[in-house]
């Protein structure tokens, strides 16, 4: 029993070392290209960093406007008029949560991108590529957050439009 436990715990400890290498294996040709064109790759990443900040600030400001100047006041007004607001209130909470996730995921992604740009890809293309894979995943999370936020806004708009048609009857 002791031997089994020892063997199993050794296997569990070895997993974190083995798995990442299998997931992010890099070929010699990739290493060579990354090393040779390190400067150009880094310049693309710096341009992307700048574009991303621009997008983040624009989107963040629009989402903030949507929440504070539209969704919240409309929901409040509906409540003050003694009308049912359950679905709209649910969407407001969902939107606020997605907005928080967006801010947090963007910070994680930006940190990784900055660390990626800081790696000397000419000397260490393997570490660079590993970090690039991590950064890609983080960017995908931000993209998912944006899609969820936009879907929620469209859903909110649909429900309010339907409500507006009720008033036209």
């Amino acid at each position, binding site marked *: 029993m002791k031997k089994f436990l020892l063997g199993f715990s050794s296997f569990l400890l070895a997993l974190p070392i083995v798995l990442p290498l299998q997931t992010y*294996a*890099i*070929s010699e*040709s*990739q290493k060579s*290209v*990354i090393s040779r064109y390190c400067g*150009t*790759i880094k310049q*693309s990443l*710096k341009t*992307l960093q*700048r*574009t*991303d*900040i*621009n*997008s*983040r*600030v*624009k*989107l963040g400001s*629009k*989402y903030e*406007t*949507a929440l*504070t*100047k*539209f969704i*919240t*006041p*409309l929901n*409040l*007004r*509906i409540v*003050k*008029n003694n009308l049912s607001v359950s679905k709209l209130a649910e969407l407001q909470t969902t939107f606020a949560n997605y907005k928080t996730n967006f801010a*947090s995921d*963007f*910070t994680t*992604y*930006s*940190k990784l991108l900055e660390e990626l740009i800081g790696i000397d890809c000419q000397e260490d293309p393997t570490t660079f*590529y590993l970090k*690039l894979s991590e*950064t*890609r995943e983080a*960017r*995908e999370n931000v*993209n998912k957050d*944006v899609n969820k936020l*936009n879907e929620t*806004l469209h859903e909110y*708009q649909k429900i*309010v*439009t339907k*409500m*507006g048609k009720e*008033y*036209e009857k």
Partner: protein
Amino acid sequence: MKSKGGRNLIILGIGAIIIACITTSVSLLIYHDSGDIYLDRSRPGFLPEKEEIEEEPQEEYAFPDDGTLNKENINEFIENFQEVIDSIDKIEDPFSSKPLSDSNLGIPAE
């Protein structure tokens, strides 16, 4: 300095510098860890270009949270809310996977 007053002045000066260094370090740590540094467009190299600067409208519309609800004010909401949604949808595929893909960075496939 031989006088007590002069020595105290030096201690005060050094103490003030140390406190300033500590508070500045703490501020920078918070600035970095909170993620605000990644939103700061006043950093060198991140200043917006002339063409990137959009003129913000003088008064931004806000739906009032008081008053009755009728066809007119709901339509007013829908119209203005649609403008916000349209401005968000105009931003093409934000944070897509393409910019960091191997092909875009010139890295060959395995």
